[in-house]
C-alpha cells in the first residue's frame, strides 16, 4: 500500500510536469505572436520591444522555460500578461468560488439523479418511467450554455425572481455574516440549477440501468424472499452496489470542480476558474492559461488517485497494489 501510494504520487508528479511542459512549448511554438498585444501593429515598435522585455520574451525559449519551471516549483506561477498580478494569487481567489459553485451543482445533480433513478427503478417500463426516461434524455442532450441562458431569460428577465449574473450584489459585497451568505445563495440559485439540470440526465440514465441490473441479482431477490419490502430492497440492498461505480465518476469530476462548468461561469459572470481561463484564452494571456492548466492537471491526477483509494475503501474485494 505504501509503495503503491509512492509510485502513484511519483507518476502523478510526472504527469503534471509533462502537461505543463507540453502546454508551455505548444504555446511558445504556435504560429504567430502569442500575445494579441505584441501583434498589434498600431503600437510603435519601441513600445512593443519594451513589452517583450517586460514579459521576458526577449529571452531564449529554454531560459524562459527553466525560469517558469523554477518559479512553479516554488508555487510562483509567474505574472499575468493582462492584469500584471501574480497568477497564483488570481487562482487562489478564483478557486474557492468555483469549488463552491461546482460543488453545489454536483451535489444537486447527484441527489436529483439518485432520486429520479430510484423512482424509475420501482416500476420500470411504466408510464412514469417512460416520461422520466425521456426527460433525462432531454436533460442530457441540452447544451449547458443554452439551459443557463434560458433560465436567465425566464427567471431573471420575464419573471424577475433571481439576479441574471454575478456572485454578489454591491450590497452583498459590503455585508457580513448571514446577510453575505444569503446574498451569495440568492445569486447561486440559477447557476447551480443550470449545472444540476444538465448533469442530472447522465447520472439518472446511468443509475437507472445499474439499479435494474442489481435488482435482478440473487442477493436482492433473497432480501425480497426474507420479506423485505420492494422499497427497502431497492434502497438498502440494491442502491449501495449500484452507486459503487459512481465513486469513479465522482473522482473523475474533481477536475470539473476545479475547471468549473466553464460555460456556466462565463454566462453568469461568476468569478471562478472557468471565467479566469476563458478570459485568459480570449486575451491569450499565456501565464494565466499555463497556471490554470497546471491546477487542472493537479486536480486530474488527484481525482484519479482519490477515486482509486475510495473504491478500495468501499469495495473490500479490491486490493491496491496488485494491478498497478
Amino acid at each position, binding site marked *: 500500500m505504501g509503495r503503491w501510494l509512492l509510485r502513484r504520487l511519483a507518476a502523478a508528479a510526472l504527469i503534471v510536469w*509533462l502537461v505543463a511542459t507540453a*502546454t508551455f512549448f505548444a504555446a511558445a511554438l504556435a504560429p504567430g505572436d502569442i500575445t494579441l498585444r505584441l501583434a498589434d501593429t498600431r503600437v510603435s515598435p519601441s513600445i512593443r520591444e519594451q513589452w517583450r522585455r517586460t514579459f521576458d520574451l526577449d529571452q531564449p525559449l529554454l531560459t524562459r522555460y527553466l525560469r517558469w519551471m523554477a518559479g512553479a516549483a516554488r508555487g510562483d506561477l509567474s505574472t499575468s500578461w493582462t492584469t500584471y498580478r501574480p497568477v497564483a494569487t488570481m487562482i487562489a481567489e478564483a478557486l474557492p468560488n468555483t469549488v463552491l459553485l461546482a460543488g453545489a451543482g454536483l451535489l444537486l445533480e447527484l441527489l436529483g439523479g439518485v432520486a429520479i433513478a430510484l423512482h424509475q427503478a420501482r416500476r420500470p417500463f411504466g408510464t412514469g418511467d417512460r416520461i422520466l426516461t425521456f426527460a433525462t434524455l432531454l436533460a442530457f442532450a441540452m*447544451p449547458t450554455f443554452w439551459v443557463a*441562458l434560458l433560465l436567465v431569460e425566464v427567471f431573471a428577465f420575464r419573471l424577475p425572481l433571481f439576479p441574471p449574473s454575478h456572485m454578489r450584489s454591491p450590497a452583498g459585497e459590503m455585508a457580513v455574516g448571514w446577510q453575505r451568505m444569503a446574498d451569495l445563495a440568492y445569486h447561486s440559485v440559477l447557476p447551480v440549477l443550470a449545472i444540476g439540470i444538465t448533469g442530472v440526465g447522465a447520472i439518472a440514465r446511468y443509475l437507472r440501468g445499474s439499479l435494474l441490473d442489481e435488482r435482478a441479482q440473487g442477493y436482492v431477490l433473497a432480501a425480497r424472499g426474507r420479506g423485505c419490502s420492494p422499497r427497502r430492497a431497492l434502497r438498502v440492498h440494491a442502491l449501495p452496489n449500484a452507486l459503487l461505480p459512481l465513486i469513479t465518476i465522482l473522482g473523475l469530476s474533481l477536475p470539473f470542480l476545479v475547471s468549473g462548468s466553464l460555460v456556466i461561469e462565463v454566462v453568469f459572470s461568476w468569478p471562478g476558474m472557468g471565467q479566469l481561463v476563458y478570459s485568459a*484564452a480570449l486575451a491569450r494571456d499565456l501565464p494565466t*492559461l499555463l497556471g490554470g*492548466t497546471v491546477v*487542472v492537471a493537479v486536480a486530474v491526477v488527484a*481525482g484519479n488517485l482519490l477515486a482509486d483509494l475510495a473504491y478500495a475503501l468501499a469495495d473490500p474485494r479490491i486490493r491496491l497494489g496488485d494491478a498497478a
Partner: protein
Amino acid sequence: MSWRSLPAHLRHGLAVLGVLTTVCVVGPWVAGDPTTIVEPAQASLLPPGSTRWVVEHRDGSRTAAQEVQRQEGGWLLTGRGEPRLIAAGEVVALRRTTFWLGTDTLGRDVLARLLWGGRVSLAVGLTALAVAMLLGTSVGLLAGWRGGLVDGVLMRLADALLAFPSLFLLLLVAAIFRPSLTALVLMLGGLSWMGVARLVRGQVLSLKEREFILAARGIGASPLRIALVHLLPNTLTPLSQDAALRLGDLILAEASLSFLGFGVALPLPSWGGMVAEAGEVLGTAWWLILLPGLAVATVVIGAALLADGLAELARLDPA
C-alpha cells in the same frame, strides 16, 4: 431485415437524424443567404412570421419597410420612424418577404441562419467524427496488436487526455492555435479519439488469440491485412454504438466552443454562435434563443436513440 422489425429506438434515432440532415442539406438552397443584413434600424428583432418589404439598393445594401408607395420621383417607405423617399433609380429590386422565424439583431433571417448553421454544425460534427474514428481505430489496432511499450505509452496518453475536462482542453488548444474551420475539425477529432482507441484495443486483445486470427497468421497474412480484414470487421458493432454517442458529444462540443467564440467564426452561422448572439439581447427576443439550442438538443437526442437502438440490435442479432 425490414424497417418495421428494427428496434424502435433505432428507427426513431434514424428518423430524427435523417429528417434533420435532409432539412439542413436541402433547406439552405431555399432559405437564401444567412449573412444578408437587412437594415437593422428597420428589420432587427422582428418576431416570427413578420412580413416586410425588402428594398435592394444599387450599392447592394438592403432597407426594409412596412409599407411601400409609388410616388413621384421614387418610392415612399414607411416603417419604424419617419417615412423616407428613395429615388426610383436607386432601387434594384423590391420584394415582399416573410421572416418565418423572425430576424436577429442585424436584421438577418433566423430561418436561413438556422438551416445554414445546421449544415455547418452537422458537417463539422460528422467530419470530426470521421477524424476521431480513423485516429482512434489506428491507435487501438496498433496498441492492441503490438502490445508492450507501444501499448503502454499510447494508452497512458489516452487515459491522460480522457481525464481532462474536454471543454477545458479544447479551449486551451483553440486559444493557442486560433483554428480555422479545417483546424477546428481536426482539433475536435484529434481530442476525441481516446474512447475509440480504448474500445478497439479491447476488442483486438480479446480476438488476438482466437483461432481464426492464429490461422491467418499461420498462412502468412501481413499484420495490416489481419488488422483490416479480420480484426476491424469484428469491432464494427461496438464501434457503431460509440460513433453514434460520439457524434452527439462532438456536436455539443462544437456548439459550446462556438458559443464561447472559439469555434465556427462569424459571419458563418452556427447553432452555438446563434445562442451566443441571442444571449446579448436576453429578455427581448425569445425566438432567437429557443430555436438553435433546441436544434442541438434534437441532434444529440437522435444520436443517443441511435446508439441505444444499435445496442438493442446487437443483442437481438448477435451475428
